[in-house]
């Protein structure tokens, strides 16, 4: 499908994707609740910082950091690895391949269609964060807000593309869910989701800074709470979008090769 045709079809794709999300509302709520780990970490780290700050983080800093983490997590979620792995194993990927819209576009829309519902949960948390910690940490430079929005998009793209790449590996391995679990474990530790990247020892921090995980969640959160200057923010944004480019090329390559192995089981 040409880009123009895809763009024309997007409103319907989103509308139907959203209708599906609403149909699964109970499951959706459980899923959202399953992403409340930052709120648990908030309580834990706040207690640790009760008597003295940890690094630059006092209690209010931890509250701001983990509430922002919760919000960014809601807005950058993707689960296409599980969908793809299941659809490869059962052969139902065939139904997507028969349509003149790239399966990755339909997966992307289905994943993005969940965001309005997630926003419903994220917005009160954002208001709560402002009430509890004030607006002093938020960037005042409009460019930093633009960078923040781009970093959200970049974070979502890395999450989506990593999912898509790992899901596509099911065309070789039959199922790639366990591989995704490994990725998730690394993501939890190195993205800033459980521990702010700044709190890692310098040697590990250096490694984290060249890995993609931080750009999925830690970078947008830092933009909101750390007071990064323009130079540092732009450098990190460049790093993030280099990863977006690498993932795009990688997924494109393995998707093309993988499709040749598709067995369209069943039926």
């Amino acid at each position: 499908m040409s880009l123009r045709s895809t763009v024309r079809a997007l409103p319907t794709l989103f509308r139907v994707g959203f209708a599906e999300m609403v149909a699964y509302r109970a499951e959706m709520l459980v899923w959202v609740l399953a992403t409340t780990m930052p709120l648990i970490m908030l309580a834990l780290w706040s207690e640790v910082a009760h008597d003295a700050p940890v690094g630059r983080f006092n209690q209010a800093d931890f509250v701001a950091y983990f509430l922002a983490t919760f919000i960014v997590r809601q807005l950058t979620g993707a689960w296409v690895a599980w969908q793809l792995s299941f659809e490869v194993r059962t052969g139902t990927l065939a139904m997507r391949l028969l349509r003149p819209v790239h399966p990755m576009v339909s997966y992307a829309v289905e994943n993005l269609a969940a965001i309005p519902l997630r926003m419903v949960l994220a917005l009160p948390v954002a208001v709560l964060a402002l009430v509890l910690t004030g607006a002093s940490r938020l960037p005042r430079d409009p460019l930093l807000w633009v960078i923040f929005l781009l970093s959200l998009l970049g974070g979502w793209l890395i999450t989506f593309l990593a999912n898509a790449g790992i899901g596509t590996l099911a065309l070789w391995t039959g199922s790639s869910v366990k591989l995704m679990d490994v990725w998730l474990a690394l993501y939890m530790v190195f993205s800033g989701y459980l521990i702010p990247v700044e709190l890692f020892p310098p040697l590990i921090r250096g490694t984290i800074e060249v890995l993609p995980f931080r750009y999925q969640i830690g970078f947008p959160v830092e933009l909101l709470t750390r007071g990064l200057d323009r130079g540092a923010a732009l450098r990190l944004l460049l790093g993030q979008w280099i990863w977006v480019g690498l993932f795009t090329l990688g997924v494109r390559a393995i998707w093309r090769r993988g499709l040749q192995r598709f067995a369209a089981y069943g039926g």
Partner: protein
Amino acid sequence: MAHTMVSVQALRKHYTVHKRPPGLRAALASLFRRVPTVVKAVDGISFEIARGERVGFLGPNGAGKTTTLKVLAGLLHPSSGEVRVDGHVPQRREDAFLKKITLVMGQKQQLLWDLPPSETFALNRAIYEVPEPEFRRTMAELTELLELGDLVNKPTRTLSLGERMKCELAASLIHRPQVLFLDEPTIGLDVSMQAVIRDFIKAYNERTGATLILTSHYMDDVAALCPRVVVIDRGLLSYDGALDELVRRIRPEKRLVLRLDGPVDRAALEAVGRVVYTDAAGVVLQVAQDAVNSAVSRALATLPVHDLIVENAPLEEVMSELFAQSRAARGEVEDAA
């Protein structure tokens, strides 16, 4: 031959699968060493199909029919050989190709499970870029022909199998495809619903001139829809031609189906023809094609006939005879079972 819509030349599709015997020991052993086996799902078949033709793919389970259909629909990449559908190489999955075809699989669905079928229709309208007036016209037509009524507004999960299949067909035809690949579209449906689906498919072919390729284990589907059959067995082409000719060639004899008013000696029956089957309800006799007239006369003269029908041997029998002949010709030993 008219415009060639489908061209298949020396198509091969081989898979590598890893086999292992049952049991814990084999499961553990397979962690370290897997034994690859090449499965020749399709092993060098060639045929052509003209625009507007209705062709049935026949063959036992695992013969390669569905694999061939999936290659034609662009889902599978051939191991070798050349395939064209209206000039397109299917596995490239170009938009122009995908907009010309549809694949309906009786065991898979494209309808969104938790939403009413109308949502899938709307989605397909957008994806296939069907203009709104054309979409409304097509939907009105499909609703009438398939008697969809209010079904389209109920969640798909609440529909019966037959209702779902009618909606599946409607969803597959919104973009008015020129080539229909139908993989067991009536599987699991009751007899009357099978007839509804068959009639609809035939009407669609006659009205639009679309090419139709069907696989089905229900011989009634094939007999009602497909003047031509392509028989595939163990990845090889066993027969390609008219269905009538296949029946004449494999089982040239005719069947006399008799309903009798009273019991009759077996000897009296055998004087008319070879007894294929007999029970309280009636008798089936087999006679040579050129002896049908005399056999009918003799039956009417010597037996208490209440009702008499002359018909071909059942297609199922013809097929199993064809497979047995093909395998014998290839020197394969038939399984005693």
